[in-house]
Every structure is written in C-alpha cells, then in structure tokens.
C-alpha cells in the first residue's frame, strides 16, 4: 500500500528526514513512535504532499500499480485515497460541524453517497450528529478529534494517516477514539498512526516503527516492540 525508501526531507535549513525507509501493507495498522522532533509529523506531511521530497522514493498502489507520489500535489494525493488527519486536530473553527464533514468529501466525485457517509460518521460518533449545526470551534478537544477523524473518513481513504490523535485528550476519550480507529481499520482502511502514547499505539498496531532523529531505528510487530527491552526503556517508561 505504501512504500518509502531512503527518504530525505529538509525543512528550511534543517535536514529532518535522513533516509527513512518503511512499508505499510494493505489493510495493516502500522504505527510510528518516537521522541519529539524525530520527524514523525514531517514524514506524514511529506506523504500527504505538503512538503517536497529531497531524495528517495515514496510510492503507493494507485489503480492497481505502484506509482510514485513525490511529484504529486496535495490535492492529487487525496484523490489517490491517501488522507492525512493533521496534528492538533485543526478543524475549521469558522465552519459548522456538518460543513467540516462535507468539506472532507470535497474531492469526491460520487456525491450521491454523501448522505450515507455522513450517517456512517454519525453512527461512529453520535455526538457529532447532535452538534451538526454548531461551529466546530465550539466543540471540546475530544469532540474535535472525533470531527477530524470523521472529516478524514468522508474522503473514503484507502490509507489514513493519523497524527497524534491522543494529544491533549483525557484517557477515557482516548480509549473511545482508539476503539473507533480499530473499527475503521477492521473495515478495510489501512492506517498509519503516529503517536506519542507509545504503549497504546503498540498495543493496537500490527506493525511498529521507531523513529529517532530522522531515521527508523527499530521495527517489528507491535507485540515484538512492546517486549523489546530497548524500546521498553526508552519509550514505555519501564525500568529494565
């Protein structure tokens, strides 16, 4: 579904990604963990087309064959089915909840299923149905996260990029959100999840990658990484 080989990305003068390689298989739930400033958000922004690629390849299966994404502008990447749910939720505060959802579906040409998709989002997160007509800025943090994920879903993604969904949310809310993320994954959407909450992420993931200063330093199944003593010490706060 997604193949990244030796990716280098700069932001301004800083060489943020220094040869990142990873792969996400169809239908997988992959997670990327690591300390602040490692470059995780930069990686997602590169995949979704917000940042240019210095060197390396970035490929995804589009219409049956692997195509490179490096030159595609952001809107074409969304059209290809890769949707990025950005860090910090970033809902459109001046639009209503419903308008936010509709704009998630902006790119789609099959507009008839719109209503059905809205219903599906409301089924996942009933609170959004209640708050449909309110401005998105008036929602709580957790509700905004639900809105952000639903908004991404409205684009019918094949690959969903989630940037730190648990950030700033209460544990109970985080639980709900992660349940929904799992449900989405089980329904067939591939997920690449970037998370600070390493333990939670590794528990739900099929495959995990650990990134430090722009490189992948560990990889393995979610369970293997959970058991790995180096990972445990560095990211899970568990003394050896």
């Amino acid at each position: 579904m997604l193949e990244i080989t030796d990716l280098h990305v700069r932001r301004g003068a800083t060489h943020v990604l220094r040869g990142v390689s990873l792969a996400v298989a169809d239908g997988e739930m992959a997670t990327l963990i690591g300390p602040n400033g490692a470059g995780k958000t930069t990686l997602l922004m590169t995949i979704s087309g917000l940042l240019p690629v210095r060197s390396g390849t970035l490929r995804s299966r589009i219409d049956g064959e692997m195509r490179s994404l490096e030159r595609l502008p952001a809107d074409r990447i969304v059209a290809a089915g890769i949707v990025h749910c950005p860090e910090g939720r970033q809902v459109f505060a001046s639009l209503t909840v419903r308008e936010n959802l509709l704009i998630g579906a902006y790119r789609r040409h099959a507009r008839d299923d719109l209503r059905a998709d809205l219903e599906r989002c409301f089924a996942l997160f009933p609170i959004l149905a209640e708050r449909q007509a309110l401005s998105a800025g008036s929602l709580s943090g957790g509700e905004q996260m639900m809105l952000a994920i639903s908004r991404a879903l409205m684009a019918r993604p094949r690959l969903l990029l989630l940037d730190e969904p648990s950030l700033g949310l209460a544990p109970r809310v985080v639980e709900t959100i992660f349940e929904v993320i799992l449900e989405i994954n089980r329904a067939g959407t591939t997920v690449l999840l970037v998370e600070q909450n390493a333990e939670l992420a590794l528990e739900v993931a099929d495959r995990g990658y650990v990134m430090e200063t722009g490189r992948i330093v560990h990889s393995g199944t979610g369970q293997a990484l959970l058991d790995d003593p180096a990972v445990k010490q560095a990211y899970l706060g568990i003394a050896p």
Partner: protein
Amino acid sequence: MSQYYLQQLINGLMLGSLYALVAIGFSMIYGIVRLINFAHGDVLMIGAFMTLALIAAGTPWLLVAPVVLLTGALAGITIERVVFRPIRGAPQVTGFIATLALSVMIENGGLMLLSPQPRNFLFPDLMRTRVPIGPATVALTDLVIIVTTLILVGVLMVIVRRSRLGIAMRATAENLAVARLMGIDVNRTIMAAFALGSALAAIAGLLWGGRFGQIDPLMGLAPGLKAFVACVIGGVGSIPGAMLGGYLLGLGEVLFVGLLPPEYAGYRDAFVFATLILVLLVLPNGLLGRSEEERA
C-alpha cells in the same frame, strides 16, 4: 420623513452601495490571503474605462455589464497570478510593497496610456428619469445602483455560503495547509476569490462612472482606501462586515456633508480617514469582525 432627509438617506445608500461593492471584494481578498490589495481600487478604474471603451465601440448596454464583470475577474486573476502568488508565504511587508508597487504601476500606466484628462461617461437618458419615493424624487440611476448591489451581494452570499466553491474559499481562508489536505486546489480557490472580488470592483467602476459622470486614471485611489476604512468599521475579513461598513461609511459621509454647514463640505475625505483612525483606536476589530490576534 421630510423630503430633505429622505433624499440624503437615498444618497447615502447609493454611495454606501458603491463602497460596499468595493469593500466586499477587498475583504474577500484579505480574508483569503491576509494581504491588503492596494491595487483593488485600480480595478474599479479598469472597470470604468472598460465601460467607456465598450460604449465607444457601440456595445449594447445589456452586454456591457457582463463584459465588465468578466474584465474585472480577469484583472483580479492576473493580479493574483503575477503579484500575489509569487509572494505567498513571504513576510507581510513584502506583500505591502508589492501591491503598492502594482497600484503605482497600474495608475501611472493609466496616466501614460490614457492621459490624466478626465473623460466623460454617460448612462442612457433613461437613467435620469426621476422616480417618486415618498415625498422625494430619486434618479433612476441611484435606485439601479442600490438594487444592483443588493442583487450582486445576494448572489455572492449564496456562492460563499452554499456552494462547493464557497466552502472551499472559507476553508482556505481559515487554514490553507489543512484545506490542501482536504484535496482542495488552493491555487484555483484563491484565484476564484480574486476573480469574484475584482468583478465586484469593476462593476462598481461602471456604476461610479455613470453616476458621477467623470472618470480618470487616478479615480480608484480614494475609493480603494475608503473600502479599507469600510472594512475596518465592519470588521476586516468578514463579508457582511464589509457590506455593513460600506453602507455606514456612505451614510456617514453623506450625513456629514448634509448636516454640517456648507463650509465644512470640503472636509468629507478628512472626516472619513479621521473616522478610520478613531475606529482603530476604539474598536480595532470592527463591528462584526472576529478578533484577530492583536499583532502580526
């Protein structure tokens, strides 16, 4: 209401309509790129001169308005492509300087090509018929201006609030990066905002020329600046705010001249800009504006 006051009210609404047209376009552009378009008033001038050219070429009046709208849209798109897009993301000062330079170029280009002599410009005689409203009689021109403005603004509001393009424009105005993540082609969306806003300014030029009878290459400067004042009064970045500000400014200007003794009439422009400074002191976000963070 006495005849005099009614007359002044209509005058104020007429002037306010013109200001509103320019201010709304200004506000749309500011809302989406966060930059003042100093050349916006010059689009009004372009619209006025295009009208003159079309009339001289014998174009039937029914065609003139659509062509002028189109001209304005094209001017706006060109301005966006040539000046605004290359400086996207640059510090704000660069934006000021670039659009100021653009305005100077357009105005002086006009002076060079068209000569500073004012030209005359007449609506068909039909427009001069006077229509009785209550105790006063109003020139048809003024009514046409007011009604045209309301119709155009109505159409614009429908586009902005209901259409797919409108929602894209509002999203892009709020957060350009995330709008891209939604699959919105932000370049085209921004161009559309410029096109719509500039079309309104061009039509304002047509109406202005027909109402006041004279046009010259520097005519856009004052309305452009006053449009900014209107936006500040109503709330920068808000379309209803721009409209409200435009009408308040038009009414205020006319009342100022109408209520004070005639020797003060010459001060009307000073009054407008003194109001700007006062409003900035007292109500920097305007009447309807959302509060921006106070500084850049």
